[in-house]
């Protein structure tokens, strides 16, 4: 009984903020103080997919490719580093960890403003690659921490066993290590993807307004005051992450996404 009350409380508090987004995205006329829209319509949605279609869809594509690229690079660099920190003891390990927590606590804005001038000189500003780099400053440390956690519960004897059974080193990595840490890799990937996906200010500073990601488009929509369209784009903005959550919930079971923010 108490479990059900708890469930209800959590359900209501979590879903409440989605209510105005859903309502506004299908509202054609909704004047104060009407509790519900006076007229429903698909104006906002058709605007998103047709009138401004190319812009929103382009933004979706830009955001998606940025987040994907950032995630891939984060994993490629973060898995080895997380393995070193999770599995081995070495002098300077604590210092390394301390150093890696800094990019997590220091906001990207401080770093982006410092790097901007040099990115301009190196012709990295306003480029896809430049934004991937700035997103890496915080996505990579987060990835390393998730992967480190995975490796601290990992038994490397599995690898020794596989080698003794005749598996060469590369096969051990792909056939043994990779499947064992896969749930952790998925969490780290989602993590990195979401961080990059929802990033606004650092993209704006380094992209100089030229890289129109979804959050940047969304900001300008709020400025324009068109609530239905802003609500619809907001929903588009949360959709991929929500789908990823649905997909991972099945795959990760009870492990879930703990630790992601």
């Amino acid at each position, binding site marked *: 009984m108490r479990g059900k009350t708890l469930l209800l409380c959590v359900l209501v508090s979590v879903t409440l903020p989605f209510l105005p987004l859903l309502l506004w995205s299908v509202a054609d006329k909704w004047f104060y103080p009407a509790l519900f829209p006076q007229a429903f319509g698909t104006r906002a949605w058709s605007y998103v997919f047709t009138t401004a279609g190319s812009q929103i869809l382009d933004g979706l594509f830009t955001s998606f490719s940025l987040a994907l690229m950032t995630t891939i690079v984060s994993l490629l660099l973060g898995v080895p580093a997380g393995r070193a920190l999770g599995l081995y003891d070495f002098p300077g390990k604590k210092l390394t960890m301390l150093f890696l927590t800094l990019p997590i606590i220091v906001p990207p804005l401080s770093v982006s403003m410092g790097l901007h001038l040099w990115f301009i000189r190196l012709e990295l500003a306003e480029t896809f690659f430049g934004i991937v780099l700035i997103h890496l400053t915080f996505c990579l440390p987060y990835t390393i921490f998730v992967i480190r956690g995975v490796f601290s519960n990992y*038994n490397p004897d599995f690898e020794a*066993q596989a080698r*003794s*059974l005749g598996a060469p080193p590369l096969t051990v990595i792909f056939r043994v290590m990779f499947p*064992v840490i896969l749930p952790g890799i998925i969490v780290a990937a989602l993590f990195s993807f979401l961080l990059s996906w929802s990033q606004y200010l650092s993209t704006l500073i380094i992209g100089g307004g030229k890289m129109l990601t979804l959050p940047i488009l969304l900001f300008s929509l709020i400025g324009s005051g068109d609530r239905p369209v802003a609500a619809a784009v907001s929903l588009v903005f949360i959709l991929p992450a929500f789908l990823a959550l649905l997909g991972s919930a099945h795959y990760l079971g009870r492990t879930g996404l703990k630790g992601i923010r």
Partner: protein
Amino acid sequence: MRQLELRNLTIRYGETTIIRDLSLSIKNGEIVSLLGPSGAGKTTILKTIAGLLQPAGGQIFINSISVNHLPAEKRDAVLIFQKPLLFPFLNVAQNIGFGLKMQKMARREAERKIDRILEITELAGLNSRKIHQLSGGQQQRVALARGLVLEPAILLLDEPLSNLDAELRLQMRELIYTVQRQTETTMLFVTHDQSEALAISDRVCLLLDGGLRQTGSPEELFYSPADPEVARFFGCDNIFSSSDSFTQQAGNFHTDQKLFTIRPEDVEIFSDQKEPTSPRHAFEGTVTGMIFEGRLTRLTVSVTEKEHVTVLCRRPAFHIGQTVWLRMPKDRIHFFP
């Protein structure tokens, strides 16, 4: 010829030498156990033979070929770890077939081999079971099957019984023994449990202080230990010298100062001086300790103030403080070389 030979194997871990100058050879089809206390470096030896650790010195031959420079995956030796370490993302048959897949064996043939080994290890029908659906004993058997199926020149087993409870341990011990007889796989078996080693092996190698102390048949090590430490390892603390006062008194020992031992269960104990068949050779003592251990009771008999004899006997009718007579049959006494 399928065999393993170690020549002057030396293993270091960091600065400390764990194994010094160890030499050992194992014949085709033999089952040899490496017995030693925990932390003696037994696992390290197996890992070195398997190619997972590099020795600091010495040579390893498998099939009479030096394998020092071969990586683990190229050595014809398979190590079975203490934990089953079954890959959780593969089912039973896939786990057993892992090594065959690495050898790129044709699927038909691999399946045939897997089925046969499942039969031998009493796992028939479990092919597509998930790992987490298996009991501890089944997991251990799959681990054994996964090594056996590769028919390696030598199978290295690292305490495969230590994760099992008492009853399963006996079953698994039987299984390893029968499987070994059936497949004639050469095995090197590591354990800290003397009864395991004695029960299962053709030969026992006792590892103490980083080197082999004694190698021989189980009976040899048990009844004819090479030195007092070996005797103590097998639970015999009756180490005496022929110059000890009580042995002098008994009068049936050599006169030169030699150390000897007698198994506690071989010491005869009587409550009356007239009972022993040759009372001349019996000596007097007082029962000072008595511990009931189940099948046998462990008695401590003080023969002088400082000299004590441990006696194991069934259903003793003695009490602490009682005066008893002990006799050590001549043929049960073992003089250290």
